[in-house]
């Protein structure tokens, strides 16, 4: 086939490409936003949290080794197990799989970087700074101690007066930001920055997994965002969402938490399953069997996982019918996992398998994960769960599925992809020892716990009585934990000694793999972006390595002198335009510092310092944003023979438009969770809704507000047309009018409620209505700030009829705010009237 770009390449083209991607020198390298740089930091930080969380577990196991021990007292132990779970789930498990995607995905897809490198850097720094600060609460004895799922009423101010619970609630905020930012990168990156010709059905399975995970994050995280908001409002202001005597309901928290919490574990597992699909094919030296089935199964797991959350609540007093449904769904989700397992087994059968270190970890994965999945099937059967729930049987199950389902594939991935980082592999001998110690350690620690739990030992106990049959089992489990610690220590030693970070070009092919991440690469990724014609391009065309390196494919240099990547169409990946990507800079890092400072200082009630942090974050975000939306520049530029592409895109094809859509779905899902809370509390209210003592405002107010909302959208839509026509006077008038109407809608709605004496601290009804109002106000405030920002760009000549991505994105948020406003009005004013 004719290659897209002709040889010889112009002199200096490679040098210009290298210069654009040059990282800053010395310590300033921390301002770099390159996905490989951030990705390695991200993986490293997550591994640090694995070690920290693991040390907590070692102390816990020391305390439980014998009955009646006094290694730590109950107060300390309760902080330890809360932090162990929280650190492992929020600061290790989700971040590490996200980090692997940050590092690997662009290369796998044939992109030079993620679509929003500064967002990625911001998300990483917020997670790193916030997570570490959160962890240090242990050293002050102020760590949370309500368990990693923090059920109220135990975690209300009445029963947990200390600041620990607030640390947890606000600390989770960082993880939420990181995860949502990650989801934006994943969805937009996977759908819009693939190499030309890499249609969806040619995309690596890891990309399918991360695409589904991105979608899952978008729908699952909002539930916990809303839940943590409600619990913090209750703790800080006494708004009684979870207090039964005031119309609240403790089960509301459980629904909100587990609607996030169950998909969360699949958010952790699916990337690992994607990695297994990649490594299995290479290890068996044959394409993955049943690719279509596997991609479908990944989507199936992701979808089904949203139906199962209530299986964490089987003893909470749900109705028989809902329990049957959830039990059936919990069994059904096993099927798409089974499809993947058998596809992998078939691939191994078809190919020739050598017992390399990655393969060894995969063998470990098959055993440990399958065992964990099977105990999951057991737990899905209701009467069995009624015995095993909240016992060490569940502790065994969750560690088998998480360690088996995520850690073993992760380590397989480490040993498989390590040569990509600096050209050198990790140690084969040490790797085998790491595997042996880990496999033995996991089984010695957790296999006995199945029995311990069925013999009656509950979870989350700092000690236990002797003579109940648990003594020997606990001792064995504790001894096993030492083996796990040894495995992790050896792993870190191996990584420390053998992993080299590549600044120079890396051109290595140790496994003779078939996918694009193995192309020769340097800081800029691959020299040119290949046209792809199959699922395993390097197997089908081994000459691709040299072609790409010589610059014979797309975008062999930089057309604007800046960092760039190709944006392609979502299904068939045909090139559409060139996305200019930002380079190193301080704003994302400083914005992360400011964000972390804001949340953490607010927790310890250092109000003015917190405000300072918040201002820093806002200023940095504005500086950052001001550098976006570069405009059409010098017009289309050549990326290949006979193909020139724009360097700027407006409208529905723009990648930032897609990011805005993702953000709107997140906001909508968050509001949806709030709507659920409202309806749930209303349905459960024993004495009517609105509560006695509360009432609905006069219907005229919301009608007026609805009209104002709609009018403000109409005016903004007209402003968009004015912008296209260049009628700047009209633009200002219409934006001002739209803004005024939006403010008016909020004010009218608030006025109506205040007139009937809305008292959020009195009853859950008032609290929920007040929260709806606050969320509307906050969304509207954001839209108003963005509108002002857009006008500021107009005043500085940076926004006009052709350079208008900023305005278009603001308009999206504007319409979303109006839609949310209308739904909120319907919820608060129509629903109770309809049900009266």
């Amino acid at each position, binding site marked *: 086939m004719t290659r897209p770009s002709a040889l010889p390449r112009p002199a200096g083209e490679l040098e210009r490409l290298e210069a654009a991607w040059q990282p800053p020198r010395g310590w300033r390298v921390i301002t770099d936003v390159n996905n490989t740089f951030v990705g390695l930091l991200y993986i490293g930080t997550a591994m640090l949290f694995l070690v920290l969380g693991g040390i907590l577990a070692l102390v816990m196991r020391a305390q439980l080794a014998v009955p009646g021990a006094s290694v730590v007292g109950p107060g300390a132990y309760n902080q330890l197990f809360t932090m162990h779970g929280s650190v492992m789930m929020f600061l290790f498990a989700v971040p590490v799989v996200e980090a692997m995607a940050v590092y690997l995905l662009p290369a796998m897809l044939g992109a030079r970087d993620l679509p929003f490198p500064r967002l990625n850097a911001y998300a990483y720094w917020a997670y790193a700074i916030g997570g570490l600060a959160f962890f240090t609460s242990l050293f002050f004895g102020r760590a949370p101690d*309500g368990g990693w799922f923090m059920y109220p009423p135990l975690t209300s101010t009445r*029963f947990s007066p200390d600041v620990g619970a607030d640390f947890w609630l606000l600390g989770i905020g960082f993880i939420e930001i990181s995860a949502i930012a990650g989801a934006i990168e994943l969805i937009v990156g996977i759908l819009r920055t693939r190499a030309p010709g890499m249609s969806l059905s040619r995309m690596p399975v890891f990309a399918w997994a991360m695409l589904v995970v991105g979608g899952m994050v978008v729908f699952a995280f909002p539930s916990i965002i809303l839940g943590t908001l409600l619990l913090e409002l209750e703790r800080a202001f006494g708004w009684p969402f979870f207090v039964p005597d005031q119309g609240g309901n403790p089960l509301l928290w459980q629904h909100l938490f587990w609607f996030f919490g169950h998909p969360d574990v699949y958010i952790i597992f699916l990337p690992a399953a994607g990695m297994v699909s990649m490594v299995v094919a290479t290890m068996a030296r044959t394409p993955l069997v049943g690719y279509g089935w596997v991609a479908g199964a990944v989507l199936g797991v992701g979808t089904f996982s949203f139906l199962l959350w209530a299986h964490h609540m089987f003893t909470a*007093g749900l109705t028989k019918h809902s329990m049957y449904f959830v039990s059936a769904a919990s069994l059904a989700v*096993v*099927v798409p996992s089974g*499809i993947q397992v058998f596809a992998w*087994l078939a691939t191994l*059968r078809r190919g020739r398998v050598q017992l390399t270190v990655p393969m060894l970890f995969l063998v470990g994965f098959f055993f440990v994960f399958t065992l964990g999945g099977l105990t999951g099937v057991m737990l899905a059967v209701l*009467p069995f769960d009624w015995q095993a729930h909240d016992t060490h049987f569940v502790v065994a199950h969750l560690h088998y599925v998480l360690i088996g389902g995520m850690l073993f594939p992760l380590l397989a991935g480490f040993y498989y992809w390590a040569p990509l980082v600096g050209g050198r592999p990790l140690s084969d001998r040490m790797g085998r020892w790491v595997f042996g110690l880990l496999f033995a350690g996991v089984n010695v620690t957790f296999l006995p716990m199945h029995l311990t739990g069925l013999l009656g030992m*509950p979870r989350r106990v700092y000690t236990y009585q002797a003579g109940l049959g648990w003594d020997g089992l606990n001792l064995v489990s504790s001894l096993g934990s030492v083996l796990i610690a040894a495995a992790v220590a050896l792993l870190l030693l191996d990584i420390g000694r053998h992993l080299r970070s590549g600044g120079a070009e890396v051109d290595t092919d140790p496994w003779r793999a078939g996918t694009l991440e193995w192309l020769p690469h340097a800081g800029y990724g691959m020299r040119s972006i290949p046209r792809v014609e199959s699922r395993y391009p390097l197997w089908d065309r081994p000459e691709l390595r040299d072609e790409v390196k010589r610059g014979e494919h797309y975008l062999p240099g930089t057309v604007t002198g800046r960092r760039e990547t190709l944006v392609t169409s979502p299904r068939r990946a045909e090139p559409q335009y060139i996305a200019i990507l930002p380079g190193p800079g301080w704003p994302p890092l400083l914005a992360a510092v400011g964000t972390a400072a804001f949340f953490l200082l607010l927790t310890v009630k250092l109000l003015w310092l917190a405000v300072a942090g918040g201002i820093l974050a806002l200023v940095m975000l504005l500086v950052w944003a001001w550098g976006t939306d570069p405009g059409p520049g010098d017009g289309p530029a050549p990326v290949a023979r006979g193909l020139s592409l724009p360097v700027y895109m407006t409208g529905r094809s723009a990648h930032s438009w897609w990011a805005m859509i993702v953000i709107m779905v997140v906001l909508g899902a968050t509001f949806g969770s709030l709507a659920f809370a409202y309806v749930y509390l209303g349905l459960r209210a024993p004495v009517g809704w609105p509560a006695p003592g509360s009432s609905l405002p006069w219907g005229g107010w919301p009608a007026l507000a609805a009209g104002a909302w709609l009018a403000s959208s109409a005016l903004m839509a007209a402003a968009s047309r004015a912008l296209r026509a260049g009628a700047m006077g009209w633009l200002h008038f219409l934006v001002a009018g739209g803004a005024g109407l939006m403010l008016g809608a909020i004010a009218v709605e608030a006025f109506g409620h205040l007139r009937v004496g809305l008292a959020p601290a009195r009853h859950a009804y008032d609290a929920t209505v007040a929260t709806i109002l606050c969320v509307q106000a906050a969304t509207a405030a954001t839209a108003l700030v963005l509108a002002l920002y857009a006008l500021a760009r107009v005043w500085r000549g940076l926004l006009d009829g052709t350079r208008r991505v900023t305005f278009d994105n603001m308009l999206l948020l504007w319409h979303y705010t109006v839609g949310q406003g209308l739904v909120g009005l319907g919820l608060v004013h129509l629903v109770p009237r309809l049900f009266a």
Partner: protein
Amino acid sequence: MQSALSPAGPAARDIASLTTLLTIGASLILLLVMGLLLYGARREPAPVSTGLWVVGGGLAFPVIVLFALFLYGARVTNTVMAPPPPGALRIEVEGRQWWWEVRYPGAAGTPVVGANELHVPIGTAVEVIVTSPDVIHSFWVPSLGGKMDMTPGQPARLALHAERPGVYRGQCAEYCGIQHAQMALLVIAEPPEAFEAWVRAEAAPAQAPAEGDPARGLAVFMAQGCAGCHTIRGTAARGDLGPDLTHLAGRRTLAAGSLPNDAGAIRAWLAAGSALKPGNRMPSYAHLDAASLDALTAYLAALR
């Protein structure tokens, strides 16, 4: 005995059989998967049928097995969830931070209040209504069946049915704060006549203390303000923040299963309760002089 694998009632027995079946089934499937892995990895490369492996093994096989499992599980669920017959004895248990208040129906509508121990007649199902005034606890006696969460504002019910006499230990199974680990209870199943006798004894007020230390102990009890938290029917003590002590000495354990119940343990609890069960709500009485402690201990140890 606190084990789901040592059932002493029909519900627990059904679940134990289910457990055995599930364990055998799971083990077989694990062997199958590992067997296929070894088989595939060690044989020479060969073409594979996606239909057989992925659709047959990955889709059809799990669907069939899981569907059958669901139906079987539903049958056991229905049996286990069967409510007690109408007119069954109804006991109320309230989970509190780190002990259990137990209320039996009494004469004229006033419940007979005790703590940390239930007695039930063998051979019949008893209904337990569980709730909590503070945080979420969970009522669990594994030898007799599954657990039920005790959620504030949401009373729930479960059935207890012991087939043979025995002492069955239960433990709180929902993390409820600092002393969740030491919140145990005992269910004592006994023949109906013994049960009736126990109920009658429980309903009676405390006898007047004997001369000497016990009588002095009652005075200490009142002087130290113990009545602010504890009730002893037959005295002026009517506190309801802590367990009812009317028949304290008749129980087998102290402090919700944390200690044996003898004079030495009572004394140790009074003097050093915050070391034995750190964080529990009872203040320390270490400041009492030895004579007062001895008297108080003698009084409490005589509350049969």
